[in-house]
């Protein structure tokens, strides 16, 4: 689920950047540091705006200036039970892998409807029910997350297509 979230971060600036456009530099550095990262619970998709850039404080010893920046960001936190769209990246007999934006997820064969079977002889290998559902690398699928796990700098999820309205997205 996407949220608009108020966050705060300490940004340090090298003394060589001290000058008139310091605030722009601080914002730039914030964007560079933060956008697209995963905190372990959510992904920071984009930063909307910054506010409350504090007075710079020179850090003793290094000479860097530290700013405390408040910012508003769009974050995405995948929840268990959430339905997301993803693109298939790899297919094998155990299941298939897909990416829902920054989130790599895995759909095992147990969580695929039994009529959609793995066909190893197809090129490329695919899951198919021999009708209109063909899941191969590049296919857009709609999946439901049934478990997520966070590690440092990344999240992983297990998903299912064994429910109504899940699976291959037609016409995409």
């Amino acid at each position, binding site marked *: 689920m996407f949220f608009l979230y108020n966050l705060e971060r300490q940004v340090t600036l090298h003394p060589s950047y001290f000058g008139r456009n310091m605030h722009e530099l601080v914002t730039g550095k914030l964007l560079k540091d933060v956008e697209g990262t995963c905190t372990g619970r959510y992904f920071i998709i984009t930063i909307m705006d910054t506010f409350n850039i504090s007075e710079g404080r020179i850090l003793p010893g290094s000479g860097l200036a530290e700013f405390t920046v408040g910012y508003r960001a769009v974050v995405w936190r995948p929840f268990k039970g959430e339905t997301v769209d993803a693109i298939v990246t790899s297919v094998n*007999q155990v299941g298939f892998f897909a990416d829902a934006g920054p989130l790599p997820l895995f759909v095992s064969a147990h969580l695929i409807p039994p009529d959609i079977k793995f066909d190893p002889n197809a090129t490329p290998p695919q899951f198919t029910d021999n009708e209109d559902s063909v899941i191969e*690398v590049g296919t857009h699928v709609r999946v439901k997350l049934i478990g997520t796990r966070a590690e440092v700098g990344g999240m992983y999820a297990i998903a299912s297509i064994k429910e109504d309205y899940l699976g291959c997205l037609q016409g995409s």
Partner: protein
Amino acid sequence: MGKQLSLGTKLKYPITISKLLKQPGDEIKRKEPILQYKFTWMQTVGDPFGDHWDEEQTTIADWDSPADGTIKEWKIKEGAVVQRDQEFVAIEETCPHSIQFQGLCGMCGKDMTEMSWASASDDTDRAKINMIHDQTALRVSEDEASRAEEELQRRLLKHRKLSLVVDLDQTIIHACIEPTVGDWQDDPNSPNHEAVKDVAKFQLKDEGVRGLASACWYYIKMRPGLKEFLRKVSELYELHVYTMGTRAYAMNIAKIVDPDRKLFGDRIISRDENGNITTKSLARLFPVDTKMVVIIDDRADVWPKNRPNLIKVVPYDFFLGIGDINSSFLPKREELPKITPSPKKKHTVKTDVEQLESAKKDESSSGDADASKPQGQGKPEEEPATDGARISALEELVRMGGGDDQALRKEQAAEQEKFLEKQLTERPLLHMQEKLDQEEEDDDATITDESRNGDTLHEHSHHKHNLLKDDDVELKYLEKHLTQLHKAFYDEYDRALVNAHGGRVAQLKPGHKKKVSIKDESADLRIVPDIGNVMPQLKSKTLAGCTIVMSGLVPLQADIMRTEIAIQALSFGAEIQTKVNRKVTHLVASTSRTRTHKVRQAAKYEHIKIVNQQWLLNSMSKWEKEDEAPYLVQIHEQDKIREEGFNSSAPSSIHDSDESSEGSADEEESESVPASQEEVAEDLEGVMPEAIEEGHSPVDDLKGFNWGEIDEELESFMDSDESESDNDSGAESVASDVSIRSRTSNKITPQKRKLGDTTDDENSGDESTLAKKQRIANSRSTGLKTVKTPNSMQSESSLPTPGVTGDEEGEEDPVDQIPTGDDDGGDDPFGDDLEADLMAEFAREEEETKGGD
């Protein structure tokens, strides 16, 4: 998915079950108590006055379920007393967690890394097998793996196919990043243009390799006939790629080799997913059963566990001197000296280059850097691999402890980067071509060199400047073998199937109905023959009945049975011997060293065919015994002549050792022939005290040693040496000199004789390690020694070290020698015969060195 729960070892036994909280059929949750038990224990209690006493306490505790599921059956009753850890309940688990992705169960989505007080073991341990080609994060349990594999096997059987694991580098392609190839490709006038014009190339953009090698072009030469080969083979086999290159590299190669992705599909595994730096393992792809898998690879040593399934391919070495760009971190390739890749031609460019190089070095031994570098290029795989091997050997030990995949891969990448950069900067191919051109010119200009270079130059003039040759035919044989193997496999399967059907009908009758219905499906799989049996059977027909002795092919100190060539020859049904004897049918001699002692020995037996290593290699490559005629080694005239003279003395020594030895006469005789000769060979220079030749450590004898006698001996020996070195041409007189000397030495060292009595007449395996080391050190190569000693060949005999041995000495394998009789050392007639042998041998050696110089 029944699972037995056990009480665990941490409880205070004996315990009494006081209450079962759940009934069969009840659902249970993790961490939920399912059982109440009580136990008694002693507690030390005290009062404020400092008194202590033990009091028996009874405690009631709950036993919490470690898993979700349903209770199936209790195996204990309320009130029972349990003495030790045992299984007490069977539960049906909701999820067996048999597929896990990054610590998540792929079936129920639960976090597997979560630990609680109730769980006895880590759930991640339940799915450990990594069997997916392009993923390392996905792991499956054993059950799941065997299920998947069963499915695969059934599918393959249905299509009458097998699995074929294909290596890339030097097996089906040859890659290099040498920019010269690009230049040649663009230049139609280049002598190599013809050969390289169909070389494919690509750039690796997002590669881990940085620095100089980051944006280089990879030039890929497909082995001749590859497309056709793969097309045909893919009808019989399901192809997998298993390479030591990176993933990006493997994908790019696959794109070149198989543009429609029809052949390999996604079945590509690279070193990024391999998980081991030095070896490949079939268990990575086929964790349960490798019955239907065949491997083709140019290196056998990376498949330590899967040799029976391996077809070793002759390495494809198109870009000479480059070797395998992805194996710089692998241990050094164990290779025969001077392999000539094409069976049709005996001397391809490679050998020529080598020979030229050595010839060149002979003429100008001044150490100009250019000459020494291509010298290294002559042995392509070895040079770059050496430093890799040194590093990896050490670091592998470290890795074994904590196998950090990431670190490992970084290591590999760094290793490779070094190697690639070297190739980019040094441009070995260019140098070699220049060299070749230069040689050509030299050749035209100076005919005087011809006498020295011998026939090499004649050979070489056919090659007309072009370094790269496109004449590999290995894939044709390979295709034949694979077809043959496929047929053999399915023939056997069909036979088994017929039998099994009969068996199953019989099985049905007595009422094993249940059994059959369960195993009906898997019954097919159980009768599937194992490639690991079928292939060796097929291969072993090739050289069956051949007893092979090798000469000059294996490093002296190596255990021949562990060398690559010997292991291979064995797998083709040949028998390997370390010594020449009557049973031997073939002597495989190195083309570069055709005058070894073993060759001379073998020349005595008419039935022994003396062939060069190419015979063996081609036979193994073609899977059929080649006609020996084209490979016969030219026996040096002198060897033949000498043989006749030599023969006269040999029988007597046979006789001697026969008398003294016990055991089967036939065996002993055949063994003792080389034995006595071996001894002769060792003492070519006649300097060695007898005790040492007899396989005795010199140190052992020192206690009873008469040093005065030794001095005398040394003196007389020095005298004779002078006369020797004066005498350059008259080999006979030298021989007589030596004979006198060795006789005297025999007389004045009776003590040593006695000490040596306990040992046998050949230099057997029980010699001390010191002696062995000495011997090895001294016997590396006579040729080298000759070069080193300042005053020509004769001065070699003046080296006073007792360990100096002859040319052949090291070739025999200390481990594999069979000790013969015990107490023949003291025999006088034996000593005389020995001397005669010594003389003859020595004289011959003298002559030979002069001739061969």
